[in-house]
């Protein structure tokens, strides 16, 4: 009997937390399809409490009846969405290239430049994690103005790369450390160059780690708001900035806000459901031995 009770308690706790975790997401998706009356009366369950309407999607021009017509909000939304994709994928790729190479070097070779050795170089990279965005924000604003990079995609990609690079190096170094060195030694004996061994032997084995680092970077860049809000205005503005600017204005309809928020979180929910394994791998690297 205590065992059954124990089971019931465990499942109750699990279900309660599932509701806590998922209800806000459900609420946002369902509000997309509510008219003003349903929102104000606090209706929750679709088809029972309220009749779903295409309001939210119509507001951003993506409902079945507006999808083939001209729509200014849709053009704007797609532009921001595309900007977010460019910024997060671009920065993650750049960080993965720079970070994997650096992590491999730090994992395999002993560097020495004046008094700096491997440990110091690793610490230099990881210490960037501590740096809060506010410290860099203002100098970057002034700097980008002088470099004509303000409100440009390249500027945004550069700063996002900088912010995810330490995480990529951390994950990849841990990944390379687990690969035995005998593998490339054999390749070197066969006449392979060190870069040849890196590309042909090591990178294919390190693929799971690279996928994990890449996905984690994409998530962080996709959600980034602080730099995007300060460094972009009309051209390179990303989706989070668009969502944030809409919340401020009064009188914006609930369903269109809900539609925008849903669009901002949907790609990540899909990634979360299908690639959960890699996210967990990325998050737990280096901390659990």
């Amino acid at each position: 009997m205590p065992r059954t009770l124990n089971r019931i308690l465990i499942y109750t706790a699990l279900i309660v937390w599932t509701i806590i975790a998922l209800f806000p997401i459900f609420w946002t998706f369902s509000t997309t399809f509510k008219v003003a009356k349903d929102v104000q009366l606090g209706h929750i369950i679709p088809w029972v409490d309220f009749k779903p309407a295409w309001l939210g999607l119509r507001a951003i021009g993506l409902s079945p009846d507006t999808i083939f017509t001209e729509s200014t909000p849709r053009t704007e939304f797609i532009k921001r969405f595309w900007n977010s994709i460019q910024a997060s994928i671009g920065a993650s790729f750049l960080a993965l290239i720079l970070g994997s190479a650096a992590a491999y070097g730090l994992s395999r070779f002993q560097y020495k430049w004046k008094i700096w050795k491997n440990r110091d170089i690793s610490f230099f990279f990881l210490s960037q994690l501590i740096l809060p965005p506010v410290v860099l924000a203002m100098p970057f604003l002034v700097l980008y103005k002088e470099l004509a990079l303000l409100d440009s995609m390249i500027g945004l990609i550069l700063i996002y790369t900088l912010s995810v690079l330490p995480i990529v190096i951390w994950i990849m170094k841990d990944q390379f450390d687990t690969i035995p060195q005998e593998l490339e030694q054999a390749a070197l004996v066969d006449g392979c160059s060190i870069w040849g061994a890196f590309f042909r032997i090591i990178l294919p084995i390190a693929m799971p780690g690279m996928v994990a680092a890449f996905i984690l970077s994409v998530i962080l860049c996709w959600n980034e708001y602080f730099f995007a809000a300060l460094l972009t205005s009309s051209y390179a503005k990303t989706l989070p900035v668009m969502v944030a600017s809409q919340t401020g204005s009064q009188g914006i309809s609930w369903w269109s806000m809900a539609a925008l928020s849903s669009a901002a979180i949907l790609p990540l929910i899909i990634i979360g459901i299908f690639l959960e394994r890699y996210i967990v791998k990325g998050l737990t690297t280096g901390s659990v031995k």
Partner: protein
Amino acid sequence: MSASSTAASGQDAVAATVSPERQRFGRLLIRASTLLLGLIIVAEILYSSGVISFGFPNWQPVLIAFVLWSAALCWGLILRDGEAGWRALFVLPAILFTLALVIFPTLFGFFIAFSDWNLQSATGRQFNGLDNLRQLWADPYFWNALGNMVFYVLTVLVQYAIAFGLAMLLNADIKAQKFFRVAFLLPFMLSPVAVSWMIGKSMLEYRFGPVTNLLRALGWENPSLLTTPWLAKTTIALMDAWVWIPFMMIMILAGLQALSKDVQEAARVDGATGWQGFWQITFPLMLPVSLTTIVLRVIFQLKLADIVINTTSGGPGGATDTISSFIFREYKDRSNVGYGTMIAEVYLIIIIIFVALLLWATSRFMQRHS
């Protein structure tokens, strides 16, 4: 930069085979490109200060020159050092990238911090010595924000306790473990800006948000969650917890799964001893993972900004302000660049000291317990 390999000792011989002509060419390449970069920077400085009349309209050529210089440096090192140059090529791009994007802005930031500079005023930048520091010392909003940061950092411990509980639940022998794991992880994936609207603006809406409705149904007559100062602070902390608990939970879960099976069996005894088993076996074994998780989480917490900016903008009356959101308003609403940067630099120094102490304390603690 010189490098020697631990992996392939036989390869060192290759470095010696670099011919003198190649070495000379490599050296020449590095020197010439450094000279070119220096020339472009000097020319640009002279042009922008009005000494010479021809130059580029902005500093972008300097950036391009830096990229070219980096490429020339890498190539030159390969030519000069052979094998060692190829090895240096692994870390050099990342180092040059980080240096260019961090060191220069940080130094430049200190330069801005000691000046009176409002982007909207016509006077432009003026050096004002320690005035910003004095203003900061007397600014109640700064000290208030710093106090709030202490509160937000302390909430990490509560988040840790909840995360530990959830990780234990997921580690128990349950069905549909994968479903629960994904469901619990999802809040962490969401953009803080979207969360601010989803929860802060919509579910906590005073008139008809589902949470306020629920609280009213439970007998709370006036659930003014975001307008009463202490309640607003707690609400922000709860939203932040909702986003970040999954992160800690995943770390702890991985730690629990790494424990050996007989340890888990020993700890998992039914009834009254289950609680003791946890405190005597599981918890001490989990200390290293727990400390790593908490330290990482504290470092992230020191950057807390997005949720505050988008839910309350620091209100009511600065009750929910973090340092980052305070500086964000200083920049965005008042364009007060000089003062905002001074706060940021002071904050940077505070957190460097704090994190260093935290890391030192954890490593001392770990040594004593192992």
